């Protein structure tokens, strides 16, 4: 899984995300979610424990989202019998269905993105964006350079804090002081980052970096048959799900049913 071309992998998981956004029934996202979970556990190579650790918080979030949608469903979707009322909100079968559908949809998104982020190396992703999707090299290496600085920010933050302590500035109390404290840390940290950006750019140029897209690459990123197979399996499953949903009369696109 981690050997699949990152750019194509990204596109592969984007397409179901976009297409599922059209559906408002329960069947389609449910079937696709079952497929995604099975696929991840069988083929991705992500340890089950690790995956569950990432996935489980989103079940709670999805439940919250479903609850909210039930309460605020628009009239176009809130058909069906009246079930119960909460305070001034009325809940019908239609709104429960839409709530569950949107919750399942959000879990589909989560399973797709976990499949991507847990199997993708960030440097390879950037290189692949440059080589396959033609992201300009100036941007690519700019991001990689900036990304490399992240660990140094933590160190600089510690230095700043110690410097403040030495000069007798204690912990902030209350909201006013907190805001001042935020400014005391954020502005110097960013000012340092800007200086570094300037130095890095000078260093890159002095070593002959022109930013031209016509260049050679040390790490060649390629798209092979295996990558297209992955693309085919995920999106094929999505198409089969949509077709089955249509055949069975469940498919609901923006409130429009095809029965």
């Amino acid at each position, binding site marked *: 899984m981690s050997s699949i071309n990152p750019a194509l992998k990204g596109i592969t998981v984007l397409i179901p995300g976009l297409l599922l956004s059209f559906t408002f029934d329960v069947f389609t996202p449910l079937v696709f979610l079952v497929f995604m979970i099975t696929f991840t556990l069988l083929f991705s190579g992500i340890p089950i424990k690790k995956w569950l650790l990432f996935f489980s918080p989103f079940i709670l979030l999805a439940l919250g989202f479903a609850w909210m949608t039930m309460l605020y469903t628009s009239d176009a979707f809130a058909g069906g019998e009246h079930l119960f009322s909460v305070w001034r909100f009325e809940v019908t079968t239609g709104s429960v269905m839409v709530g569950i559908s949107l919750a399942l949809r959000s879990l589909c998104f989560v399973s797709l993105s976990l499949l991507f982020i847990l199997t993708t190396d960030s440097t390879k992703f950037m290189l692949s964006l440059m080589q396959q999707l033609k992201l300009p090299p100036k941007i690519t290496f700019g991001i990689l350079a900036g990304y490399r600085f992240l660990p140094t920010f933590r160190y600089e933050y510690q230095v700043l804090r110690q410097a403040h302590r030495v000069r007798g500035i204690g912990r902030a109390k209350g909201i006013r002081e907190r805001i001042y404290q935020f400014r005391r840390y954020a502005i*110097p940290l960013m000012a340092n980052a800007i200086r570094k950006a300037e130095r890095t750019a000078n260093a890159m140029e002095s070593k002959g970096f022109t930013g031209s897209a016509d260049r050679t690459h040390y790490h060649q990123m390629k798209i092979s048959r295996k990558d297209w197979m992955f693309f085919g399996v995920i999106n094929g499953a999505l198409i089969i799900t949509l077709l089955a949903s249509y055949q069975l009369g469940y498919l609901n696109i923006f409130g429009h049913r095809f029965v």
Partner: protein
Amino acid sequence: MLLKEWKLKEIVLMSIFGVVFAFIYLGFYFFGQGLRNILTPFGLAPFGYEVIFGIWFIVSIIAAYVIRKKGAAFWSELIAGIVQVLIGSPAGPQLIISAAIQGLGAEAAFAATKWKNYSLTVLVAAGMSAAVFSYAWGWFQSGLAALTPGLIIATLLVRIVSGALLAGVLGKWISDQLAATGVLRGYALGKERQKKRVRKAS
């Protein structure tokens, strides 16, 4: 959106802004989650994110205000989106699309002035425009079509105000603070400040 007229140091600066704010954005993702949990018992959960939504457009405002080149708002936001995926945001690659759309929203406001005017009004307008663009995308992606029109209008208004304040006003304030330290001397905002100072002195 071409980067030909850009200097390399401007691009690296924009990338660094993208990286720094990607981290801040991710922090606010969890902050918003908490805010939402607090508001849920009052039935106001949908407003949890809307109140702070403007923070997600701030890098567009800062990059455009500091660098003042075509595409600064769009690219900086796109970079912040990509970097959030690199760090491992749970939103995954979809975030890159959301970021591109928000960036286009902010860029539209600067394009309307032909990239000449960077006053507070324009910066606030850019924040508001990003809010509207991002809302249209959210309407599609999160299935907001299934919610009542009253709620949609209310959340949209809150998001626009948030975009105006947290992106427009706060973004200008942070950039001005940075310019005051002198590190932006090599960029458009710093040069403008220096010109003003020279004029005052003479």
